[in-house]
């Protein structure tokens, strides 16, 4: 799996959540081109080819970003802002994943142009289902969009 060629960028600070997410995506064969970064700073570095990802071709953008909101250093909302502010990344579909259904988070992220939203339920099955459906959906949409170019 190349760090520099990703279809799915998973931004998640919780190793357990990340593992469960990857496991869910694996089940539907979507995890082979997945890059997992552990916080917002790293996510931005990856997307813009800076910091530890210096030299990475920023033009090579992932097809979908799964973004956790509550993270140390740079949180999901800030990452979302920067993604949507950059011409190179603003068209990447972003799916927000969060533990809470706090209205504030939802409103803020929709204002910032998030494409989808999923609350991580305690029941793993439904979470896995939601994640895999979303991942599949957005990847397929993107493929169609790319193919039609």
């Amino acid at each position, binding site marked *: 799996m190349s760090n520099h060629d990703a279809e799915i960028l998973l931004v998640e600070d919780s190793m*357990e*959540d990340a593992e*469960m997410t990857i496991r869910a995506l694996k089940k539907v064969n979507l995890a082979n081109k997945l890059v997992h970064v552990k916080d917002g700073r790293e996510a931005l570095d990856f997307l813009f080819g800076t910091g530890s990802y210096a030299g990475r071709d920023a033009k090579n953008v992932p097809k979908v970003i799964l973004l956790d909101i509550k993270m140390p250093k740079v949180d999901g909302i800030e990452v979302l802002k920067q993604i949507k502010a950059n011409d190179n990344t603003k068209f990447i579909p972003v799916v927000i994943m*969060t*533990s*809470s259904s706090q209205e504030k988070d939802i409103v803020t992220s929709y204002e910032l142009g998030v494409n989808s939203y999923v609350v991580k339920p*305690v*029941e793993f099955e439904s979470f896995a289902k939601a994640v895999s459906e979303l991942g599949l959906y957005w990847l397929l949409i993107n493929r169609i969009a790319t193919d039609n170019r």
Partner: protein
Amino acid sequence: MNQSEILVSGKKQSLLRGLSIQQRLPLLICILLLSTVVAVGIAAYFGVKQSSFRIAGDRLKTVAGQLSSIYGQTSVSAMLSSKTIANEEPIKKYLQSPGSVPDSIAKISLRKLQTDTQSLYVELLDKNQQRLLRAGRPGFETGISGQALLAELQLTPDSARVSKMKQVGDSLYYAIVSTVTADKQIIGYVLRWRIAFTTEQGLRQFSQLLGTDASLYLGNIDHSGWTDLRKPVNAPPENVYDTASYYTYSREGIGPVIASARPIPNTEWVILIEFPQRTILEAARRFAGWILIIGGFITIIGIIIGWFMSRNITRPLKQLTAAATTIASGDYSSSVEVDRKDELGELARSFTIMSTQIKNAKENLEQKVKDRTQELEIVNKELEAFSYSVSHDLRAPLRAINGYAIMLKEDYGDKLDAEAERILSTIMSNAKMMGQLIDDLITFSKTGAKIISNQWIDMREMAQSCVDELTRMEPAGKYHISIDDLRPCKGDSNLIKQVWMNLVGNAIKYSSREEMPSIHIGGYEDDTHCHYFIKDNGVGFDMQYASKLFLVFQRLHTDAVYKGTGIGLALVKRIIDKHKGTIRAESAPGHGATFYFSLPKTSES
């Protein structure tokens, strides 16, 4: 005080009450001064009138006395001269021995009595009162018979008298009659006929003596023959002959007069001096007029002073009123500037202190409210942050526990025996349970802080949709649920939906083990509230625990039989409380339960 007076005073009071102080004070001063002025004016008028009358009367009396004595002396000298000349020798001889003295000689004597313009003629009568001679204005006769005149006078020998004045036509005549006496026998009479009128010069002299307005009258004591020395005039009232006092009466052509009369000594005449009251009253009137003018002037000054005084009083009052109005409208910055040392100044200072204190108190209050609000906001934010982190952070490990348990089951399921699998599923169900608990708790805490909206809710439709939603997963026909026609009510539809969901959910849950689960949803209303109830035939509960029913985490059934977090009814109660409604439950173990809740008909938003 009789009733009409009370009425009048009451009316006056209400009239005064309608006026402002600024109008009242000058009005009072005006009334006071005017009444004083009028009273003084009237008193002065009558006082001056009375004293003027007295002075004028005294003067009239004096003048009348003086004039009557002058007249008396004049008549005495006239009678004396008449007597002297009448008893001159030629006349005596002419009478004693007719023919001894020629007529012309006798006439010379007689003509001596023709002294002034008032003299008309002189006649000589014999003792039989027959005219012998006549001297004077030729051809003029008074037409009064000498005999008649003498009969009135009843002369004694060696005497002379002045006759009454006799009116003949427009003229008045009198005669100074003297006897001609020889040897104490009357041998003849000399009659000096005179006109009672005087010349303009004579009248002028009287005027100078008496003053221009005064008039002099002469008349007989028997009330006849009155004249103003120009022409005959009407007689004055009869009581005028009493000389002790002065009199007032009305004279034709002149009006009211004051008069004094005095008999002229040695004659049968009366002298009367009249003075028009107009002149005397004029003085009194003029005096009263002056008083009125001065009084009016004082009144006007009084009103002006009163106006300024009352303005002086009302201006600070107005300022106070304006300041009070400003304060009442919420502006506490206004103060009253009254630079005075009197009671009003004191009031204004007190007012300013009061308004300052109110201002300070309000500012303090505002500051306190601000502080409290800030504190509350901080607490609220902390609470929000807390519930946020609870919802995030407590759920993450739960998710991991559940997720990893599933992974274990999926990846190593074939290696686990039945007991291991039971333990694993217990772990999973508890993790799920805790997730539910956290969700419920967050909902519960959010409900407390939520501002409720207020709209019309179709309660029947809402109850029906809750029933549909909750029985979707149940086998068809398991529950017999009837819903009556429910009255719509006002409330927050999201929250009321939560109430229906929880209550109907409870009814379904606690009747699920019955053979024929039956639920009845109904309602009724009274004047103030709409009431709704949900009745089931489930397990029910013991009423002695009813007080614990609506408390958080209080459950009357064990988890093993009926799953639950113990938050549902607490949330329902909180929502109903927020709507100012009521909730209660009736039940007996094994006989089902009925939950009643009510919402006010006019719910405030």
